[in-house]
């Protein structure tokens, strides 16, 4: 229970080699290879069912790949407790009897170890994490009473309390209003300053282009991985999305409309 693995700083924080996942003979991910360095911020885009959630689960060490390998700082993901998974809000039971501090404290479980109760040090981590996401005043709030943006920031605080060095965020911006989206995007800047590596699954190609260092274009296989302007080109997008994507030329600026928005995968 609760392993502890030292990181080798000369290794990439995340290295995927020839990853494939098949369910019942159907391919969910096919031959994916890439690597990330510490502090990078990557948007993962692709149509519904592209395998974004599957990829995150494999990286998190929760789902074993059918073939291929993932290493996190030089060892397999399941040896690490530093991978933070931020779930889709739609997948959470918001009536569960916990408050914000309870949820953030869950992130400390592994560091605390079995048969241990939170110490002052653990509470300091929780309070610092809540300060970072500007939610200290809401620590005692029941989670069902939070706004969408607050719910999302609470889960980021939980990953911070976990001392996660690699955060996987599944559609953190979906269903949020613009100010709340901005709050999350600002938070990504803060995380980058703390050298946290972040992968964000998103439907919004504009945001991917504007706010991320690199973009991964995924639809079962990797259609592109690199700087946004190199990946988000019409011809590559059309190849990845097929005819599920509309390209609109507005005032010389290319706007993309993904008509598969916002469902589960």
């Amino acid at each position: 229970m609760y392993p502890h693995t030292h990181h080798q700083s000369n290794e990439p924080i995340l290295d995927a080699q020839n990853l494939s996942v098949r369910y019942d003979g159907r391919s969910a991910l096919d031959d994916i290879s890439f690597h990330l360095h510490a502090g990078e911020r990557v948007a993962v885009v692709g149509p519904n069912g592209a395998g974004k959630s599957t990829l995150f689960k494999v990286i998190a060490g929760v789902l074993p790949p059918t073939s291929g390998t993932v290493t996190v700082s030089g060892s397999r993901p399941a040896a690490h407790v530093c991978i933070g998974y931020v779930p889709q809000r739609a997948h959470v039971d918001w009536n569960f009897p916990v408050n914000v501090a309870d949820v953030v404290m869950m992130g400390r479980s592994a560091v605390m170890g079995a048969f241990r109760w939170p110490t002052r040090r653990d509470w300091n981590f929780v309070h610092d994490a809540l300060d970072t996401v500007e939610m200290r005043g809401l620590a005692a709030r029941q989670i069902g009473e939070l706004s969408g943006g607050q719910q999302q920031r609470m889960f980021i605080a939980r990953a911070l309390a976990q001392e996660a060095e690699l955060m996987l965020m599944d559609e953190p911006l979906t269903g949020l209003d613009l100010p709340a989206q901005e709050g999350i995007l600002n938070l990504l800047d803060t995380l980058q300053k703390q050298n946290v590596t972040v992968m964000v699954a998103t439907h919004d190609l504009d945001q991917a282009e504007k706010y991320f260092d690199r973009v991964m274009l995924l639809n079962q296989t990797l259609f592109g991985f690199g700087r946004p302007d190199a990946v988000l080109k019409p011809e590559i997008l059309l190849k990845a999305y097929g005819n599920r994507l509309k390209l609109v030329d507005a005032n010389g600026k290319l706007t993309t409309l993904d008509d598969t928005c916002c469902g589960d995968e």
Partner: protein
Amino acid sequence: MTWLLEPLSYPFMLRGLAAGALVGVVCAVVGTYVVLRGMAFFGDALAHTVLPGVALGYILSGGERASLFWWALGTAILASLGIGALSRNARIKEDTAIGVIFAGMFALGIALISTVRSYAVDLSHFLFGDVLGVTNRDLILTAVFGGIVLFLVFIFYKEFLTLSFDPVLAATLRMPVGLLNNLLLALIAVTVAVSMQTVGVALMVAMLVTPAATAYLLTRRLWKMMVVAAIIGAASSVTGLYFSYYLNIASGAAIVLTATAIFIVVFLFNPRQGALRRG
């Protein structure tokens, strides 16, 4: 005051009250997870699945009741792990699989008991409990095994909480998810065995679910839900036994009816989200 004290002059009543309160607390605390994880049907099925084991023990021991606790315990643990494995591997839906097994095992239990001469009386004890027939030895077993269950719920509090709220987080924190799930099933099984004498298999699910569901309406944190559920569970048992004593109704039924009445009152009138206080 004499109406309160009078029943206490009977040793069987004292033992019944103690057993009822203990069972009320243990069922309510474990029931918290049953309610939060949507396992009510599993709990009901498990209780019924214990019947053939108990019946077999009853026949083999020649109608002697002292060893029945162990038969119940063994059957419950086997059945809980079996249902757990079935629901993970089966190609049919989990609740369907549970339904098939549970009805079949229950029928087997009834068939076995019907081979015994004093069939009707014995069957009703197994189905509806016999809290006033609790012996000192039963009481000690209840206290020891109930205590073990509460102790395990306590020391694995943060693990069970995390696993119930967010299984993916539990997995990324490298908790032994499969082991913890099986441990929880086993705890429910022990609780069922411990409670059999008091409420019987037919009404068991009410003791697991009703006090916890009531507490769910009243509280917003897990440990408070457990404490409130335990108080409601114990109070239902004690109050129910008094009703049973004065109104001359079956004890298990009286306990469950009391718990149900508390639930209905809370559901309608609780200050936070009562059905009649909304809007």
